[in-house]
């Protein structure tokens, strides 16, 4: 029974999407560290992508809501900083989804539309803390790239 509760709580937490990257789950981004059962509650541990990431509070609320909706509460959510998150924590599935959304995954350098490697950085700081703005020199389309951290 307890194992089942934990497994279902894990699945509920893992399915929560990042509000700034809708479509990508916190598990795929490597932000979900652990889901445990402690003192009768589901204890979720998260790590922030950037220290000032404004989405962390929302992610915490959504995890709580997802687990409570499944009737598995109560829930506690805490964040831990160490080891520091890096873009290497993004899963292969997460990288594939980024690519499909037209956002170049960290460490890659190819236009998501025409595939050309002739690209340039337009702005190192993009619309969210985790993205930069690039442009393809072949098809001239600007696009977003996930920053490597």
């Amino acid at each position, binding site marked *: 029974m307890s194992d089942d509760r934990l497994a279902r709580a894990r699945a509920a937490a893992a399915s929560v999407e990042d509000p700034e990257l809708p479509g990508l789950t916190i598990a795929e981004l490597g932000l979900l560290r652990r889901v445990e059962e402690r003192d009768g509650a589901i204890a979720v541990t998260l790590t*922030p992508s*950037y*220290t*000032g*990431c*404004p989405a962390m509070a929302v992610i915490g609320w959504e995890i709580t809501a997802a687990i409570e909706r499944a009737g598995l509460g109560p829930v506690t959510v805490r964040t*831990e*900083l*160490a*080891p*520091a*998150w*890096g873009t290497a924590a993004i899963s292969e599935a997460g990288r594939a989804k980024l690519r499909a959304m037209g956002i170049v995954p960290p460490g890659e350098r190819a236009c998501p539309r025409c595939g050309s490697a002739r690209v340039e950085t*337009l*702005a*190192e*700081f*993009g*619309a969210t*803390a985790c993205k930069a*703005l690039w442009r393809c020199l072949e098809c001239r389309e600007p696009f977003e790239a996930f*920053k490597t*951290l």
Partner: protein
Amino acid sequence: MLADDALVLGHRLSEWCGFAPSPEEDLALANLALDQLGLARALFAAAGLDEDRYAYFRDAREFRNCLLVEQPNGDFAHSIVRQLLYSAWALPFWTAAAGAADPALTAVAGKAEKEAAYHLRHAREWLVRLGDGTAESHARAQAALEQLWPFAAELLDPPADPALPDPAPLRAAWEATVSATLARATLARPAACWPRAGGREGRHSEAFGKMLAEMQSLARAHPGAVW
């Protein structure tokens, strides 16, 4: 001290939001501000302190930030010089602190180090662009450097604290980064001058009171407000 540096610099950077020279730079400075505020929050949390009380309900004399970070934004060159002088210290500081004995500080340092690296890169690239740019941008960058230089000593010479990294190698790293950047930016190193200090003891500049008044006005008018 560290949390106050991060908080105050973060607030100063946030004042650029909506006023930066270009939309890209507006995003960059807001991003830096967010990182600094996040760092301040993490440091308050690591020390077990109530972030809202510490940010919004202390008076100027109770803040321990260095004078450099509270200096008004001035023109864009001023803000970039301030950022360079700070980041050239912050990167080696957080790298060293990542190996500190206190696990709470180490955890924060691991993240701060990664962010400090691109803060420094941003400031360095801009200072080279301004210094080695037009006569106007060069003159403004040089003027900003002359004005902010006396404030660097306080950052580089913090009160002795065995829990924090040894400041001597940090000073050497700062010196190397700043010298190399000034050379690339074709800016002249200001003459040695009387250092301006006092922030670590709570003696702040006039502009700091005005900054705090704005930063704290909402929280003080509506204590406990949430949104």
